[in-house]
């Protein structure tokens, strides 16, 4: 029954996808613009998640400090909270009248809402937890004695990080990158709430599907099929993780 629950919607998409017109639909201007923007947004979000998630994951795996449980709970929260709520929160923080946003606006004339930066921020918010969890598992699986050995042999901390830690964690870093990228690519609720919906600026592929469903269903189904193909490629890339 569970398999059917997952398989039937996919089958429905396959049946309704306009296969004879798919090339035409996927290469029209709206789709290409959304695809380009989605790649930029998801890649930026994954990069930020990796860079900011790395020290965070290290602290969570190796550190012992007060409030560690709280920090972990906070970091994982975006995984389980409704994305639209994330969008409302981002507005409250970075909107024109938000906690930080009003300050940005009044002092620097910067407005995040309705910009590509806002779409990246929304995507990062939801993809960071995945990166942190994957990296944290990597740190936990790492034999600390190897790093210690390098240190006792006179290697600097930077050298240990670069030549021992990072190479040993390469698979987990790759997994963190792919997982957070895929989550960022699929982000919808926080994006439409915080970044709005404008072609070429904030209309990513999921937003294009949502809009096209009302006006051009063939396009909506074709783009959906494209997103499923990408998701399938992600599962294949991480088959060691998901398909054991």
């Amino acid at each position, binding site marked *: *029954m569970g398999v059917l629950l997952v398989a039937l919607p996919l089958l429905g998409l396959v049946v309704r996808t306009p296969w004879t017109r798919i090339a035409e639909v996927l290469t029209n201007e709206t789709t290409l613009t959304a695809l380009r923007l989605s790649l930029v947004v998801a890649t930026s979000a994954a990069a930020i998640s990796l860079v900011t998630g790395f020290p965070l994951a290290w602290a969570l795996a190796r550190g012992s400090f007060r409030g560690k449980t709280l920090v972990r709970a906070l970091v994982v929260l975006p995984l389980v909270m409704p994305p639209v709520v994330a969008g409302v929160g981002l*507005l409250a923080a970075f*909107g*024109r*009248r938000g906690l930080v946003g009003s300050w940005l606006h009044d002092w620097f004339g910067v*407005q995040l*809402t*309705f910009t590509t930066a806002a779409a990246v921020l929304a995507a990062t918010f939801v993809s960071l937890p995945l990166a942190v969890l994957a990296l944290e598992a990597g740190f936990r699986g790492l034999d600390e004695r190897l790093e210690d050995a390098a240190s006792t042999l006179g290697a600097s901390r930077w050298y240990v990080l670069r030549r021992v830690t990072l190479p040993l964690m390469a698979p987990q870093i790759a997994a963190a990158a792919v997982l957070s990228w895929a989550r960022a690519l699929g982000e919808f609720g926080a994006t*439409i709430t915080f*970044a*709005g*919906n*404008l*072609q070429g*600026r*904030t*209309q990513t592929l999921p937003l294009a599907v*949502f*809009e096209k*469903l*009302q*006006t051009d*269903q063939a396009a909506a189904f074709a783009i959906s099929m494209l997103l499923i193909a990408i998701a399938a490629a992600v599962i294949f890339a991480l088959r060691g993780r998901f398909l054991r």
Partner: protein
Amino acid sequence: MRARLRLLPFITSAVLLLAACGGSGSAATPSAATAEDHGLIVSAASSLTDAFTDIGKEFEAWNPGVTVAFNFGPSDGLATQIEEGAPVDVFASASPTWMDSVQDDRPGVSDRADFARNRLAVIVPTDNPAGIQGIDDLANNGVQLVIAAEGVPAGDYARQIFRNAEIYQAAMANVVSNAEDDRSVVASVASGEADAGVVYVTDVTPDVTDQVALIQIPDAVNVIATYPIAVITGSEEAELAKRFVDYVLGPGQRVLADYGFLPAS
């Protein structure tokens, strides 16, 4: 394998329980359920949210045992749902286009009638950061404008008004977001994220009057939206659905007028 199979009844009952919970919002509470109870599902344009919620309460009061559940959203999205087979009894659209679509495509409609008209207006946050005084100011450089997406009646009407006012190019260049529906436009302006929006006059409800200021659009360039309502073919409550349509065309007119809608003719 056996362990997994034993979980099946539990999972099935959990799913059924969830389904029951989901249903209780739209139907009568289980304890009050009797053979007399009837439920009506009405899909209505977002601009009708407040007026139809009131009309629904009145209709329920006049018809004991009847519950009216509303599905508010952009008319184009509602039409798509109905065409995909959503079990809707009554459809109230903010434009004849989407009613035509449901009527001509599937599943078809009956008892169709126009029940209201609406004008559009410019809205700005009360502090009016972009100093908007009239429709032409929407073409000013740097105005952050939000309108409903293309295909959404409020979005199509806004575009038509820009054409009528001969500011289409400049105004469209100022659009920072194509919102899902008119109410999302109001939310963006009320929160101060956008400098201006184009919505129905009736969207400035008491809830937002202290956050949003309304600027009239001259009749010469304005668009008058016509709202049709109809019973969806295949409704299992067709007779009740017809009564609801009659109620909207009759006593409901007073409620619509209270919320600023114009009569259909």
